[in-house]
């Protein structure tokens, strides 16, 4: 006797706890096995690129906070770099160092969230993420000291940063940086060798290096496949060439490697912040730039190695006080290109874990 079977299409999301916002997957199953997946975007599309054409350059800095809201400092950084490149604005030494400290703290914070919610997706519900929120809280306290905000910082300016760091900042930062390696070891004790974590992540959602490069993935997703590509080393912007740090790479490109990348990168970020603290000079924190300044006609592409990958801003100026075109290169959206290939042949529960391991933020995907 033969059984009649037919394919089933299931909608996952947009309202689903493991979609990190409002992402929707239309997944086609043959029995329990995934045979096709179509991502559906746009539930958080706010038209930021269009709105930005109607605001002055300075007014657009807060918009960038609202792209990847878990890494707002990095977004600020990439945007001001693009405009500084366009207008040829110099940045004082001290501001460069403050920016690096903030960007690396942001990377730690974003990776903490990435790893925490990744474990959440795997079923380690809320316990690991609570430990990670504990450390993220300390980073947010540091940001609050520096700029008064905890989520959308609006901290960087063309030619520097908005406020100098207050007196209590450095002791608190030193405390945090001294404690952080211990916390990372604690996470490793809890999860790195956990049998369930290994069973759910090792060898699942494999991405080959060729595929990762061809699909323009970046950040931990690319490096987990063994490609040593980090813009901080490959194309050093700001003053990253002054710091000594390693670029961790994976070997298999599976979920486990993507998770390990984030842990290893946090350790490297701690190293960078430590060096930046020691070298931090005194001096000016910002070149004065008029709020309605007009960069010369032209275009510029500024990019940073954000927590999720290459984060770029392509700015076209027509010589007026508002950008003619404001284009974001969103790492999270491009990393999702390969999600389909990664989950085909696996089961639903693996798809959720694989999706979590990519670590996206819908604010940036949809814009």
């Amino acid at each position, binding site marked *: 006797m033969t059984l009649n079977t037919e394919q089933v299409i299931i909608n996952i999301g947009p309202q689903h706890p493991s979609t990190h916002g409002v992402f929707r997957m239309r997944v086609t199953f043959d029995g329990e096995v995934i045979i096709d997946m179509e991502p559906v*975007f*746009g539930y958080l*599309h706010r*038209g930021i*690129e*269009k*709105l930005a*054409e*109607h605001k002055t350059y300075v007014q657009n800095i807060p918009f960038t906070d609202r792209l990847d809201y878990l890494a707002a400092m990095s977004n600020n950084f990439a945007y001001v770099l693009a405009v500084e490149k366009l207008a040829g604005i110099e940045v004082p030494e001290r501001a460069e160092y403050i920016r690096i400290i903030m960007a690396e703290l942001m990377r730690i914070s974003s990776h903490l969230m990435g790893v925490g919610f990744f474990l959440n997706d795997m079923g380690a519900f809320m316990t690991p993420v609570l430990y990670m929120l504990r450390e993220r809280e300390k980073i947010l306290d540091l940001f609050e000291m520096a700029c008064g905000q905890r989520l959308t910082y609006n901290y960087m300016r063309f030619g520097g940063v908005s406020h100098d760091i207050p007196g209590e900042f450095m002791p608190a930062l030193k405390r945090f940086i001294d404690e952080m390696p211990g916390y990372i070891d604690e996470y490793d004790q809890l999860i790195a060798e956990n049998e369930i974590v290994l069973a759910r992540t090792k060898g699942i959602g494999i991405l080959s290096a060729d*595929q990762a*490069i*061809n*699909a*323009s*993935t970046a950040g931990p997703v690319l490096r987990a496949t063994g*490609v040593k*590509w980090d813009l901080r080393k*490959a*194309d*050093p912007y700001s003053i990253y060439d002054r710091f000594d740090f390693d670029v961790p790479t994976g070997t298999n490109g599976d979920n486990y490697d993507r998770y390990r990348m984030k842990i290893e990168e946090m350790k490297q970020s701690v190293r960078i912040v430590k060096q930046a603290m020691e070298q931090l000079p005194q001096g000016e924190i910002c070149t004065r730039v008029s709020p309605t300044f007009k960069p010369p006609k032209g*275009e510029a*592409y500024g*990019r940073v190695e954000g927590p999720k990958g*290459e984060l*770029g801003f*392509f700015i*076209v100026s*027509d010589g*007026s006080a*508002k950008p*003619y*075109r404001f*284009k974001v*290169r969103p790492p999270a*959206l*491009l990393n*999702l*290109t*390969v999600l389909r290939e990664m989950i085909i042949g696996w089961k639903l529960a693996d798809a959720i874990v694989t999706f979590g391991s990519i670590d996206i933020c819908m604010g940036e995907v*949809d*814009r």
Partner: protein
Amino acid sequence: MTKPLSGSDIAQQIGDQFPDAVTDSNETAVFVRSEALLDVAGFLKESLDLNYLNNITAVDYTDYFELTYLFTSLASNHSLVIKTRCEERDNPRVPSVVSLWQGADFQEREIYDLLGISFDGHPNMKRIFLWDGFQGYPLRKDFIIDVPGGGKATKQGVNDA
């Protein structure tokens, strides 16, 4: 440091292979006729090892659309900017590079969605962010939006009311 390749040098290399493909070139970019884009991109991908597509940006200059492609070679660490123009406004069409770089998939769909440029040969050419019944293409300069705080957006940007 990533070394940006000079557009003029590359233009010569392309010219040897595809005589009338290049329309212009300068130190920062090569301008290619849109019909020849796929051939030229495929040729450069092989000869210069441009295995990584960083970014595609489309800009509406009201007379024409300009597409800017930024490619990088991860092995040799050099990059190249290729630009192409599309003068047609009612039904602009440009060849898709998805067959060469899968990373172009969502970026081309996004450009189609927001600027209305169709990419020939794209496997799934439909809107990505906006819904199917949406009228118009928001990032075109003639798409008018109400600006909070007064002022209307026009072709040239915002006229303060």
